[in-house]
């Protein structure tokens, strides 16, 4: 039983070079494998009969992962604690998404994960595996701006520009789900993004215009 613990998974975690005093990670990981079968007779009936899922452990230490960014697989080796935002910015040189609050409040780090807008500062990179990650870098086709980006330019929807990439991604995610938005819908739908320069009016107009443009089938 001991041998079949989580450590036997492909990403065999080696003990760290410098174990911290008074605490053994190994102990924890090994402990996980012990006692399977011992715990919970008559407990969690349904789960117990189901075939045990392959134990899935990542770390300690850097682990190789594959992210699908704008449709392309990208390999990167990161520690499990690294957020999707930091993986993109610090390891992959994709600096479009901005790190502003780093606690899920401002929206500057917004990306579209499996079709849903999320704050990339609040998603772990390892948790983003297997899902398509759309970022600002993938939005344009060649030299042609995406209709959302073009509408931002037309409506002067940025000042310092720090919030812009997040807003554009939030707007794209919003229009994908609400092709006919009113100004009020836009205000509500983009409530998760903040702009310290106060360009909200321009942004809302841009989003309504971009939605019309995209329905015209020009891009999207």
């Amino acid at each position, binding site marked *: 039983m001991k041998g079949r613990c989580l450590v036997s998974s492909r990403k065999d975690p080696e003990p760290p070079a410098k174990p911290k005093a008074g605490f053994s990670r190994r102990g924890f990981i090994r402990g996980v494998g012990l006692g399977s079968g011992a*715990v919970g007779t008559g407990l969690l009936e349904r789960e117990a009969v189901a075939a045990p899922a392959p134990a899935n*452990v990542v770390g300690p230490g850097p682990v190789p992962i594959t992210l699908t960014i704008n449709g392309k697989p990208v390999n990167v080796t990161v520690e499990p604690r690294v957020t999707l935002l930091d993986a993109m910015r610090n390891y992959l040189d994709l600096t479009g998404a901005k790190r502003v609050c780093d606690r899920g409040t401002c929206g500057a780090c917004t990306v579209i994960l499996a079709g849903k807008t999320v704050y990339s500062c609040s998603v772990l990179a390892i948790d983003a595996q297997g899902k398509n990650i759309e970022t600002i870098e993938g939005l344009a086709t060649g030299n042609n701006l995406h209709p959302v980006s073009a509408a931002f330019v037309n409506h002067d929807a940025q000042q310092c520009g720090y919030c812009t990439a997040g807003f554009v991604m939030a707007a794209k995610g919003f229009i994908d789900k609400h092709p006919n938005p009113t100004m009020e819908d836009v205000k509500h739908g983009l409530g998760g993004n903040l702009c310290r320069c106060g360009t909200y009016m321009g942004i809302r107009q841009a989003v309504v215009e971009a939605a019309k443009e995209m329905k015209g089938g020009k891009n999207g």
Partner: protein
Amino acid sequence: MFDRVEAFYRPGTVREALRLLQNGKNRARVVAGGTDLVVEADRSIRFLIDITHAGLSYIRRRGKACVIGATTTMATLENSPAIRALAGGILARAAATCGSVQIRNMATLGGNLANGSPAADTATPLLALDAEVVLADARGRRKIPLTAFYSGLRKTAPGKALLIEVVIPALPRGGRWSFQKLGRTESDISLVNAAAGLQLDSKGRAKWARIALGAVAPTPIRAVNAEKLLVGRKVDESTLAEVCDQVAREVQPITDVRASAEYRREMCRVLVRRALEECAAGTGCSL
């Protein structure tokens, strides 16, 4: 965000998750959507156990009850036809107010409850719905009322247990419902929130009533004495005034960065009145 986190586990079953949780002692934490954990940034966490792959994302009918798995997201709840149809959609409405789209795409029902915030927006409607929660630990599963789940400020029953699902029992026939939230901005945390359920008899008297409030006591609460006062009475202006006075006596709001205790207490009256008026309007009783 998780500076000290070293390993990350993604158990495929509840059983495995429980074993990991037990072995991780105080250094392992369950993570679902992570939207509360990110902000908490607890530096004692070494192991994260991601339970979003443990088969707990579902909305089911079980007999007359509606059962919602712990990792069901707010976005799923707000868009689910079943949840929108349940009790005037109060749970869907509450879920739709939990932060921004980006938050609601990640945030889970279980996380909202287990985090133990008195302002958790889904807790209030669930209290009005007499919801129960199913917990699992090494000894087995148990079902407890949501009221028993909260034991104090930010204290909830889980500990080494996992919140598995929320059970909403059969609702009173002809019941009418309302959820009200007051926040500084649309996606901000509640200053006060309130939920009400009302069943009237043929003479317009309250046969059954539920009044729940959030962000005005150490835990989300039911205003039981106000409910008692309402039952058996005709739902008219003077009853509402009395009930709202009783609510204001029953809550224990505090002053914090968002609002003063005094303001919160006053808003309890306002929100409960709005909620009961909406319920009464729904039953065709004119006030």
